[in-house]
């Protein structure tokens, strides 16, 4: 520091909040822990193996992609985004799916959906949901082979055979509630009869059901979501709107045609709705950037989910709904902007009411 030191190249502010991208990702992962542990407990070792495979392959695939592009590998791996993507994908897969489903899905999510579009922050679609949709369309059998909560859990060695050895699952396979209902509809069985013996509100509420690895436990997912809201990582807009988007049509339709449309609890507690509401539609990269935009986004995802569940060819619609709305995000961002201080919604300077100014 002397008379002739060059002018500094720094810029205000000269202080910073103790935050970083890595910390944001880590907080989301912490929020996922309860639901994930519940999944491990409910579905046993194969679930843990599947989750681990997804995480490891995402990191390997990202490292490889960055190397091929000649970009620095370490900072991108350390930000935790690839790990979080893989984690979310694993939670949305059938818990006893073979290892290559997780590996392929993770690699697709990280390389094709994220890095090809320019890396972190540049992807148009939610990587976990895009990968899940790709897997569902390509490998419908593996992606719809569920394990009922009553199935006997394998030991460590048998579990290795389930995940890595291709052991047949026919003996323990079960249908998800949404899938079962859809199948029964095709046989002309109405909702009331289809649900008999397949539906217990308490089991559904706690997550004792056939479903994806981490999407079954509404209380634990809600806990994680509230934690993220409290930590100001996400806001209430998108989750509340998505739940509302499913709840409103569910209430109305069920009131009108109860034997055709599921009730509120049926919709809110099944499929990937809770995981989607708190961890998928809140993905900052692929959702709008204002509160109003996020609300509209969540509401549309909810409505589309209900529509697909009720009228679509697939029993569950969260992933499709999310992808459709991801594509619409730039439009929402274009029209739903905050009002600028001293200007009206159209951007014109406020006019002064001379009388009121007195």
């Amino acid at each position: 520091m002397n008379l002739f030191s060059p002018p500094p190249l720094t810029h205000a502010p000269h202080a910073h909040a103790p935050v970083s991208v890595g910390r944001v990702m880590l907080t989301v992962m912490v929020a996922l822990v309860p639901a994930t542990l519940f999944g491990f407990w409910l579905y046993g070792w194969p679930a843990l193996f599947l989750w681990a495979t997804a995480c490891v392959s995402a990191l390997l695939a990202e490292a490889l992609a960055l190397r091929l592009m000649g970009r620095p590998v370490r900072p991108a791996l350390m930000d935790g985004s690839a790990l979080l993507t893989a984690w979310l994908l694993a939670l949305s897969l059938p818990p006893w799916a073979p290892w290559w489903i997780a590996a392929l899905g993770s690699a697709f999510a990280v390389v094709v959906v994220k890095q090809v579009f320019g890396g972190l922050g540049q992807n148009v679609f939610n990587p976990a949901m895009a990968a899940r949709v790709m897997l569902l369309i390509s490998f419908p059998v593996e992606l719809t082979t569920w394990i009922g909560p009553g199935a006997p859990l394998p030991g460590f060695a048998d579990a290795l055979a389930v995940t890595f050895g291709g052991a047949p699952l026919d003996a323990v396979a079960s249908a998800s509630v949404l899938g079962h209902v859809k199948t029964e509809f095709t046989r002309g069985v109405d909702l009331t009869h289809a649900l008999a013996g397949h539906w217990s509100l308490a089991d559904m509420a706690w997550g004792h059901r056939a479903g994806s690895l981490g999407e079954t436990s509404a209380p634990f997912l809600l806990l994680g979501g509230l934690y993220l809201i409290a930590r100001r990582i996400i806001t209430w807009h998108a989750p509340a709107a998505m739940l509302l988007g499913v709840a409103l049509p569910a209430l109305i339709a069920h009131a009108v045609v109860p034997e055709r449309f599921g009730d509120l609890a049926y919709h809110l507690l099944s499929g990937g709705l809770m995981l989607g509401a708190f961890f998928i539609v809140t993905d900052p990269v692929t959702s709008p950037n204002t509160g109003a935009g996020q609300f509209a986004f969540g509401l549309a995802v909810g409505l589309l989910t209900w529509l697909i569940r009720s009228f679509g060819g697939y029993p569950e619609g969260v992933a499709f709904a999310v992808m459709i709305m991801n594509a619409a995000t730039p439009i929402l961002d274009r029209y739903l902007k905050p009002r600028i201080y001293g200007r009206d919604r159209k951007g014109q300077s406020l006019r002064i009411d001379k009388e009121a100014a007195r």
Partner: protein
Amino acid sequence: MKLFGFRGGIHPEGRKQGSADRAIRALPLPERLFVPLQQHVGAPARPVVRVGETVRKGQLLAAGQGNISAPVHAPTSGRVTAIGDHTAPHPSGLPAPAITLEPDGEERWIEAEVPADPYSLSPEEIANRVGAAGIVGLGGATFPSAVKLNLSRKSGVHTLILNGGECEPYLTCDDRLMRERAGEIVAGIRLIRHAVGAKRAMVGIEDNKPEALAAMRQAAAGHEVEVVAVPAMYPMGWDKQMIQVLTGKEVPAEGRSAEIGVLVHNIATAWAVQQAIGLGRPLVSRIVTVSGGAVAEPCNVEAPIGATARDLFEFCGGFQGEPARLVLGGPMMGHEFSNLHVPMVKGSSGVLALTRAEIALTQAAPCIRCSTCVRACPVGLLPLEMAAHIRADDLGGAVDLGLRDCIGCGSCSYVCPAHIPLVHYFNHAKGELASQEKGKLRNEATRKLAEARTERMERIAREREEAARQRAAKKAAADAAKKAAEAAKSTQTSEVAA
């Protein structure tokens, strides 16, 4: 009192304890004072003293010139030793004109004429005296206060708001001033209210300054000055935010606060007004917060204008460890300086020596569109979108998103988890736009001159042609006349001959 809502804002760590708990201390006179001629918005002052001249404290050193300008006075008695360049309080650290004063240590004030009852002065007279005392906005904007007073009186202001927000972290100069000199501030407030004819006077103070609130409430009792606690939140000290919180009114984007009947002054400005009118003392010193993790004894110093950063740091026990960054002003909007010879000016609210841990320097990461910046922006802008446009060199796109409404408060940069220097982008773009506009004006002027020249040349050529034609016609006429004359002559001759 009912407060009104506002948008955005952040809660940066205050880090005010160190300096807020100590009483204001007067800086002993340094060996030399370097008084810059440009300490305000507007035209620089013009020196009216000569090298070698002895001056008294408060004597005029340089007079304001033009409509928007402010005079500069001697911060102490002594001798003018130089009028020339000195390091400017600007990030470039480039030299700027200043008057060097060698104190004689006697602090002899000028003899001032003080009115027996300042409230008997006419509003115009108060504004004149405020202008002559060189008072500028002491919150940091440094706009000449007299200009604001005159403008407000003419447009008819009903509410006077005194800004005691002091929302910048570290800074406590206004806090201490309110705790220690509340009576003088309230007297200044009443003078300003008298000068603009406002009905209502309100002081907004952040609720993290309970002592200042208590002192001001006590001093204001019986004077119809409302002291209001406002929530501690950055940027509460932004005048438009303060107006919105206290009155619920919004200043139009393309207008001034006077248009909605409100005038905002900093509380330190009110103190300076009281000093100028009540005691006849021009603005020659100010309270500066000396703070930061690298300062041994952070405190508030009453420093004469022209004392250097080195004088202040040394008075506060010097550095403990090597400072990672030196900052003039607060950490949110202040700027770095590297040369300890920079002098304190009227707008210097603080000098900070920050440690590496305090500035939290981190490499920028990619934007994850988390929109924390959107929630933080007090103006209602989309910082992430603006930065994306600027990065792609699309300044027009950034302007459409409201770049010109950005106040550069730094809230977005502060909360950005990716540590993207958003304000840096915006200030770069604003500078680029300004230079583009300047270039456009220059081109326009050049084009006009060129057109005028072409026209002039064409006119000259036309006139020449015309003149030549006229000459030719005249000649032809003359020739014809001559010929006719000759012909007539020859006829005559022939007749004669015949």
